[in-house]
């Protein structure tokens, strides 16, 4: 089973400049990067964004291998969108290739290439965020950023707490799934063969214990939190107070500059 190999949203501990930046800065810069990515209209824009992303990956010391492995689960989606774009982008002039109902135009090839780049870069930049920011810091940052919404009675703290708990338990649940699967296989359960209905039925011995243990964990966690006098966000202080430094200001400025640059490049060329 390849469950253990999933690296989606996994934190790589480290102490590079990317790791040390304030999580709010990193979230905002990621948003800025994604906006820039959608504003980019032509090759120079994409090249600059790609260069920035490569530089950040090198700085983060996460390694290109890990980034590529993280891309594996969405590989099919990338291929699918690329193929759709390739065949369904109408173009002027003669089609480069045509058979049956399909016509491939030069514009289609460009659209497919850009779409692959766009999705891959989008995923990579969000990966960089989660690779270099621990889930706790990430939710802390989100909570701080969404704080203004409290004015309109959005339960920001509760949402952030729910998110950090959910993130915290993903690896635990994966491990648990692995364990229960092995235990049921040891009793002759067969998860791989049979038709769709048979496969669905084979999941019962896996899902029932998994749900029960998830509820049990939730119960235990709630008791443990109450024992430590948790009563929501009201009046709660933090051990680690987030502070914006010079590096953060520079990074934010960099994000803004990147957006402007991409727009300008779109206009010029």
């Amino acid at each position, binding site marked *: 089973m390849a469950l*253990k*190999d999933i690296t989606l949203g996994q934190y790589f501990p480290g102490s590079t400049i990317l790791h040390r930046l304030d999580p709010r800065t990193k979230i905002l810069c990621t948003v800025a990067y994604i906006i820039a990515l959608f504003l980019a209209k032509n090759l120079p824009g994409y090249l600059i964004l790609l260069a920035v992303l490569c530089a950040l990956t090198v700085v983060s010391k996460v*390694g290109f291998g*890990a980034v590529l*492995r993280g891309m594996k689960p969405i590989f099919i989606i990338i291929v699918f969108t690329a193929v759709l774009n390739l065949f369904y982008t109408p173009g002027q002039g003669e089609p480069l290739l045509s058979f049956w109902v399909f016509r491939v135009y030069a514009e289609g090839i460009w659209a497919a290439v850009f779409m692959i780049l766009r999705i891959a870069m989008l995923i990579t930049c969000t990966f960089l965020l989660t690779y270099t920011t621990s889930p706790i810091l990430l939710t802390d940052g989100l909570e701080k950023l969404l704080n203004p919404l409290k004015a309109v009675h959005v339960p920001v703290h509760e949402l952030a707490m729910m998110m950090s708990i959910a993130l915290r338990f993903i690896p635990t649940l994966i491990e*648990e799934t692995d*364990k*229960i699967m*092995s*235990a*049921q*296989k*040891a*009793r*002759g*359960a*067969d998860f791989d063969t049979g038709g769709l209905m048979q496969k669905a039925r084979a999941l*019962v*011995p896996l899902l*029932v*214990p998994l749900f*029960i*243990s998830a509820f049990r964990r939730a119960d235990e966690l709630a008791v443990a939190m109450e024992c430590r006098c948790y009563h929501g966000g009201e009046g709660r202080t933090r051990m680690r107070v987030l502070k914006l430094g010079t590096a953060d200001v520079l990074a934010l400025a960099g994000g803004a500059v990147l957006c402007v640059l991409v727009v300008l490049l779109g206009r010029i060329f």
Partner: protein
Amino acid sequence: MEPIIQTEQLSHIYSANTPFEQTALDKVDFTAYRGEYLGIIGHTGSGKSTLIQHLNGLLKPTSGRVLFEGKDIWETKERIRQTRFQVGLVFQYPEYQLFEETVYKDIAFGPKNMGLDEKEIDRRVRQAAQFVDLADQVLEQSPFELSGGQKRRVAIAGVIAMEPAVLILDEPTAGLDPVGVESILRNIHDYHTAKNATILIVSHSMEEVARTVDRLVVVDNGKIPFSGPPREVFAHGEELERMGLGVPAMTRVFHRLRALGAEIDPSVYTVEQAKAAVLAVLERRGGGKGAV
């Protein structure tokens, strides 16, 4: 004695070719004989759990072979499945794998997967329940209404009901009170004598396994440094302590006595053996006079 399970140069590497690569087993040669009561001891992370998951084909060796009754278990897909029924594996905290509406149905899950007929399944479920001291009325209850100790019994019965020739249990007594520990160990022993089954009990508590097993296998750092009858293994007291494995209290006392200069056999691990060893020394000193 006739070997029932063997591994030949068995190696297992987790997350091979990634930065998280880790060798869990390193060219291990392991043998369990038919009808043997075997203890496997090792520190957390020593590779003992990895080893037992190879014995019924849950994990595939990175290199090396696993033989059941002399034949490679990975020969065909069907053979793997048959091996899983022949080599029953009870995981740590097995109560978390229960899922059926009634205890009866849960115990019947394994036999049902074997494709047995109703009558045979019924016989096996009732017999397995008997082995682990579950009363008949419990069989109709939901497993989730039971106490922790009883859930554990149901889970063990679920594996025993497949009537495996080899029964492997990973820390079967973890988290139970002393009375629960004793009765589970007794249940396992009953199955062993009734079916002449090979039992492999994994533990990190020397005291617990030493009393019941014929032979001990020590796993440390993906290798098997020693194996043999408990007395032979406990003669390596200091090395065992260095591996983070406590030897039984009695053994530790006698090792200390020896270090103090007493001419005494340090491989004892029960009160009876200790008494015999002390008496032997006194005898040598002449007529039972003088202190050790």
